[in-house]
């Protein structure tokens, strides 16, 4: 079973490139059981979305 530390590394890495099937399987199992890492995954997506939004958003502040 992956630790949260290992899972977080894989989640971050998934933002760069697809990870192998073995890692994906380990990650899926971990995420089923770990709310903190599920939240972390959502936060990573949000951070990426936010940066691109703030870069591209043309509406004046």
């Amino acid at each position, binding site marked *: 079973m992956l*630790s949260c530390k290992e899972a977080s590394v894989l989640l971050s890495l998934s933002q760069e490139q697809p990870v192998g099937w073995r890692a994906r399987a380990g990650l899926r199992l971990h995420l089923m059981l770990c709310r903190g890492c599920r939240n972390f995954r959502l936060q990573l997506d949000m951070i990426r979305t936010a940066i691109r939004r703030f870069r591209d958003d043309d509406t004046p502040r």
Partner: protein
Amino acid sequence: MTSPGEQDIQQHRAYLMRYALLQLRNQEVAEDVVQETLLAALQGLAGFSGNSSQRTWLTGILKHKIIDVMRRKAREQPLTINDDESEADAIDAIFSANGHWQQPPANWGDPAKSLEDSKFREMFEICCRVMPERTARAFMMREVMEMSTEEICKELKITQANLWVILHRARLSLRACLEIKWFGTRTN
């Protein structure tokens, strides 16, 4: 020959400024590269319009100018290189000895709502600004300029493994900062 519309230029400038500021984190330097970009663009082509292909084209010019600035800066004052060990130590500190989160990431609720909130944007910018220079440079190359990891490694003269650690560290610290500054102040 049609002269570029004032409004088009202003709109492009605003976009280019946001882009340059996210990457360079310095108002003056960002203004300079945007100015150079617009001048280069005006010399290269008659007429501006607000369409998206022109934005793409301008962004291409801007990217080159930004990379030039970063190279020059790297030559003039090389950053003190954090060795991988200190990066790894910083990541270790976020987890307990058995690999659990010291502070498990919380539920941030509906992202769309936060993204609409100008206060969130302000906090996000603050959290980006507190990132160490070397970390921010690599992270923004990835997220703002959307460079591939290969390109970034070549530019910064580091290995893939180095870069992964830097990016991971950047995300961990950015999310921790946001959680304290933004989400910690709300009740879910």
